[in-house]
C-alpha cells in the first residue's frame, strides 16, 4: 500500500461530480427551471469534467488499472502537457468551473462535489503528485551482448568422417553414444 496517492481519490470524486453536474443540468434544462441558463452551463461543465477525469493517471507504486476504453482520452489529455499534468492547475480549474453551478439548486450538489474534488487535488499537488498517462508498454528488445557481432562463418574444426566413426574394437573411446542399439546387417 504505502503512502496514499490523493490524486486517485480526487479523480474518482471529480468524475462523480462531473456526472452529478451533468444530471443536475439535464433536470434543470428539461424542467425549464428558473435560471436554466446555469443548468445549460452545468451540462457543458459536466461533460468537460468527465472527459478530463475519465483517463486514470498512472500510480507511482503498484499496478495502475485503466478504465475501459480510456486510451483515446489519455492521448487527448496528455496533449495538453503541463496544463493537465500539474495538479495545482487542475485544482484551480475545478474550483473555477464549480462556481457558476452553485447558483441553482439543481446543480448545487455538483458544485459542492467538484469543490471537494478540487480540495483533494490541492492536497495531491502539495504532496508533489503529478498526472502520468498510462500508455501501453512498447516492447524493447533486449540488446544483444556486445561480443556477439556476427555469427561464425565456418564450422568448428573436426577430424574427417572416417576417424569420427565408431570403431568396433574401441567402443568405449568413441565420441558419441547410440540411443538405439545398432546391429550389423547380418544379425
Amino acid at each position, binding site marked *: *500500500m504505502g503512502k496514499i496517492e490523493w490524486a*486517485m481519490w480526487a479523480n474518482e470524486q471529480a468524475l462523480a461530480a462531473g456526472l452529478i453536474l451533468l*444530471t443536475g443540468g439535464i433536470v434543470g434544462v428539461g424542467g425549464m427551471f*428558473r435560471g436554466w441558463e446555469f443548468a445549460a452551463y452545468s451540462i457543458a461543465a459536466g461533460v468537460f469534467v468527465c472527459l478530463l477525469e475519465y483517463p486514470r493517471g498512472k500510480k507511482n507504486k503498484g499496478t495502475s488499472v485503466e478504465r475501459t476504453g480510456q486510451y483515446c482520452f489519455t492521448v487527448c489529455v496528455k496533449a495538453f502537457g503541463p496544463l493537465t499534468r500539474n495538479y495545482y492547475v487542475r485544482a484551480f480549474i475545478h474550483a473555477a468551473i464549480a462556481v457558476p453551478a452553485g447558483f441553482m*439548486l439543481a446543480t448545487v*450538489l455538483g458544485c459542492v462535489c467538484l469543490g471537494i474534488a478540487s480540495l483533494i487535488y490541492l492536497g495531491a499537488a502539495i504532496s508533489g503528485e503529478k498526472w502520468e498517462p498510462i500508455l501501453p508498454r512498447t516492447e524493447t528488445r533486449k540488446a544483444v551482448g556486445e561480443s556477439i557481432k556476427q555469427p561464425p562463418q565456418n564450422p568448428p574444426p573436426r577430424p574427417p568422417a572416417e576417424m569420427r566413426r565408431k570403431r568396433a574394437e574401441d567402443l568405449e573411446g568413441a565420441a558419441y553414444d547410440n540411443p538405439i542399439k545398432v546391429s550389423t546387417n547380418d544379425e
Partner: protein
Amino acid sequence: MGNMIINHGLTSFILVVWMSINIFLFVWFYFFYDLGDQFYYTRHLLGSWCACRAPAAVLNFNCLLILLPVCRNLLSLIRGSFMCCGRTMRKQLDKNISFHKLVAYMIGLMTAVHTIAHLLNVEWYNNSRRRMYDPLSTALSDLPDGNNTTYLNPIRNIDNPTYFAMTSLAGITGVIITLCLILIITSSMEVIRRSYFEVFWYTHHLFVIFFIGLVIHGAGRIVRSQQNLVQHNYTLCKDRIESWGKVAECPYPQFAGGAPGTWMWVIGPMFLYLCERILRFIRYTQTVKYRKIVIRPSKVLELQLVKAGFKMEVGQYVFLNCPAISHLEWHPFTMTSAPEEDFFSVHIRSVGDWTQKLISMVEELPEGTQGPRMGVDGPFGTASEDVFDYEVSMLVGAGIGVTPFASILKSIWYKFKDSDPKLRTRKIYFYWLCRETHAFEWFADLLQVLEKEMEERGMGDFLTYKLFLTGWDQSHTDHVMVRFDEDTDVVTGLKQKTNYGRPNWEKEFEQVRKENPSSTVGTFLCGPAVLAKVLEKKCAKYSDVDPRKTRFYFNKENF
C-alpha cells in the same frame, strides 16, 4: 446443473425476495400517494410527485438492511444457532459484504431518483408561489398558516429554490447526507479500497452523519395531507375557490404534515450496530497472550496466540488489531491451527503497510518476550466440517488458498490419531498448486512434519500429496537436473517430488478412482473459479451411476 442449484440456488432466492420487496414498496407507495384523496390538492400543485415518495420508501427499507450485513458478531451468533439448518443456509452469511454492496447500489440509485424528483417538486412549489400556474394552485399556495387555516405549500416566502433548500430542515439534511453518501461511494471504489484502505475506512465512517441526518430528515413535516376530507370535499369545492371559508360546504382545507417515519425503520439496525461496535471494543480489551512468535522464511510471520474462552472450527478466520500500528484498523487472517490444539495461530505475509510494520516491530523484539498488544475478534466464517464426512477426500489448494488447508490437514491428522468417530476419512489426496513456493515454505514444513509422523506410525498412505509448481523457469530445471537422483525434492525437501506445470486432472481422477473402487470421494477446492469449473466437470465425468462404485462430489469452498 444440480451442483449449480445447490451452490447458487439459495443466493438467487434471497436476491429475488429482496428485489420483490423493493418493487412492492415502490409500487405500493407510488399508488398510495397517487390515488389517496388526502393528497389530491398536493398532486394538483406538483403533478406526479409520487416519484419522490416511492423511492423514499425503498430507501427506508434499504437503509435498514445496509447496517445488518456488517454486524459480523451478530452474524456469527446467527450462524451458531443455525447449526441444525444445514450448511447452505449458513454459507449465505458468508456473502454478507456482497449483499452490503448491492444494498448500497440500490441506496445510491434511489437517492438519485428521490433527489431529482424533489428538485422538480421544489421548483413547482416555488412557481406556484409566484402565481405562475392556474388559480387553484395559487389559492392553495396562498393558504396561510393562521387561525383557521393551515398551509399546504411549504415554501412560505417567494424566494428561490436554493434558499428554501438551505433553510428548511429537510433541504439542508438532504444535501448533507447526499454529500456524505457521494464521498462514501467514491472512496469505496475498488481502486481506492485495494490501494489505500485507510482512506476507504475512515471516510466510510461518514455513515454516522448519514444516519443522524436521515432520521431528522423528515422532522420538518413538509409532506402534507388534507385533514378535513369529510367537511371539504374536493370534487365539490375545487372549482369554487372564492367561496372557501364563506360557504358551509366548503370550509378551508386543512393540512398537516406527516410524522417522520424513517426512524421506525432504522432505529433497530442502528442499535444492533452500536452493540456490534461495543462488542468489538470489549473483545479488543480482552487479553491475548503470545505463546510463540516465529519468523518464517520469505517474511512470513507466524503468531501462536492464546485467548481465554476462544473456540474455533476448521477453516475459520479472525480479525486482528494492533493499537501500536493503528487504533482503528482490523485485518482478517485465516487461522492455520487445528481446533484440537490449545492455541490458535495465524501466518501473516508482508503485503501492505500494516503487515510490514507488524513484521518489522516483531523482528526487533528480543527473544522470548511477548509481542505487541493485539486485539482479536472472531472467529468468523462457516466452518468446513464437510471435509470430515467423506471416506476419501481430494483437497485442492491453489496459491494463497492453501492456508485454510493447513488447519484442515492438522485437524484431520489429530482426529485420525485419536480415532475420532466424527472423522470418516480414510484417505486424503492433497493437491497443492502454486506459481512459486515463495512465502509458503511454512506449509512445506507442515507437510514434512505430517509425513514424518505418518511414517513413524506406519500410516504412510493416509495422505498422498502432490505439489504443482506452475511458474517454473530455466533456473528451476537446471537445479532439478543437477539433483534429480536425491531422495527428497529439491524445492520443498519433501519425499514426494514436485511436479511442474498444471496437473493433468484426467490422470489424477483416474488414479483416485483406481485406488478407491467403491468409495464416495469429496473434492474440495480453495482457489480460482476457473479451476472450480474444471474440477466440477471432472467430478461429473468420473462419477459412476452405480452407487457401489466410485462417486465424486464437488464442494467449492469460499474460505
